[in-house]
């Protein structure tokens, strides 16, 4: 059976892709970002997952507001990396695994997540900006992507709770796949940022760190937030963090953090975090001390 071996939360800021393509890995303004991804890339290289379930959003590139899906899953052996108007990037087409994608689609729909299915459509920076920082791409990507697009652009958006439940359904879908594949769930977007209106440039580091804490230990609490709460706390576009809740929903109750990098350079708190199933040492200690209290 397929197994979820961990999850990664990552920003998908388009300038990450631009800086990567321009080779600014050692530029002092960008190095803290790129360095922050290295431990995650090393973990992926060591664990060798067969597939990444990538929960991302399309930025009105492939889908437009005249028909914009709430949840959409991509099926295909390949997906072109989208030209968003600034030219094609020097990346191989994103690789798929049709059998796995179809199984996950069938499982999700039978589990009452009535997805749109897309095929032979380009995938934009929502997935393609962080992907090369996670996986090498020369000569080709080492595994498949199961792209799942979430509407975080045109309200009504799916609620935080709905996204969390989607994650739980993704776990059931992956774990019912008969082949012994290793799967990692990637949630993208955020953290705090606002890029429209006079409130552009809003950030809230205190909230970002609290969000990361709750994501790990009290994700149910985050599912109670409304979209307006996310907008107030983290800026308008930080509402895309509901996609991190979909990632979290696919993980067991107890997870431990292997790595975190938080870099707020200009407008977006660019963050990457890696979790595996398990307990933090403090949780273990608390549990064993409780257990040793005489009855």
């Amino acid at each position, binding site marked *: 059976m397929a197994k979820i071996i961990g999850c990664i939360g990552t920003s998908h800021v388009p300038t990450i892709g631009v800086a990567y393509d321009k080779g600014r890995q050692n530029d002092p303004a960008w190095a803290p970002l790129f360095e922050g991804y290295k431990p995650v890339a090393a973990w992926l290289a060591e664990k060798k997952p067969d597939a990444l379930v990538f929960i991302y959003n399309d930025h009105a590139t492939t889908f437009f507001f005249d028909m914009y899906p709430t949840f959409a899953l991509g099926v295909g052996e390949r997906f072109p990396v989208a030209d968003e108007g600034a030219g094609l990037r020097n990346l191989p087409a994103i690789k798929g695994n049709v059998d796995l994608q179809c199984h996950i689609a069938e499982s999700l729909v039978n589990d009452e997540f009535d997805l749109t299915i897309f095929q032979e459509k380009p995938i934009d920076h929502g997935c393609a900006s962080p992907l090369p920082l996670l996986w090498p791409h020369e000569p080709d990507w080492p595994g498949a992507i199961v792209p799942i697009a979430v509407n975080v*652009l045109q*309200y009504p958006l799916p609620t935080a709770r709905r996204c969390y439940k989607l994650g739980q359904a993704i776990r059931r879908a992956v774990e019912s796949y008969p082949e012994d594949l290793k799967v990692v769930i990637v949630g993208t977007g955020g953290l705090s940022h606002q890029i429209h209106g006079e409130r552009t440039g809003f950030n809230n580091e205190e909230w970002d760190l609290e969000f990361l804490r709750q994501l790990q230990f009290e994700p149910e609490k985050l599912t109670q937030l409304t979209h307006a709460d996310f907008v107030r706390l983290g800026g*308008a576009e930080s509402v895309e963090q509901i996609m991190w809740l979909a990632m979290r929903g696919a993980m067991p109750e107890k997870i431990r953090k292997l790595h975190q990098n938080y870099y707020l350079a*200009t*407008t977006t708190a660019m963050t990457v975090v890696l979790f595996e199933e398990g307990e933090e040492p403090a949780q273990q200690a608390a549990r064993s001390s409780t257990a040793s209290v005489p009855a």
Partner: protein
Amino acid sequence: MNPQLKGIEQLSGTYAFDIRISNKTLKLNRFLWKMIGKEWRERYLADPEAVMQEAGLNDTEKELLRKQDWLGLVQYGANFFVLEKFARVARKTNLEVYAIMRGESFEEFMQTRRVPESR
């Protein structure tokens, strides 16, 4: 009113893009979205008035575009993720558009950032 958006009206300088707005501004947003395509971009640059007319834009929308009134476009109901595609055609970076929306010069805006060299 979408209950998920309750209270958002209290946040100044924030314009939630919902299906009610989208329905009123679909033509403008489609015009902006099509800037992804090279042919549309080139036709627009060669004859902006003709392409705005073809897109079915009204006079208010045309005037906002002529003036490249970035904040005005957002307040009118342009979605930022298609507006940024138009910004590329207007040879503006996102950071430059952010500064304009805040009513600051580019350098003033960058000085409010933690890593002003990151551009």
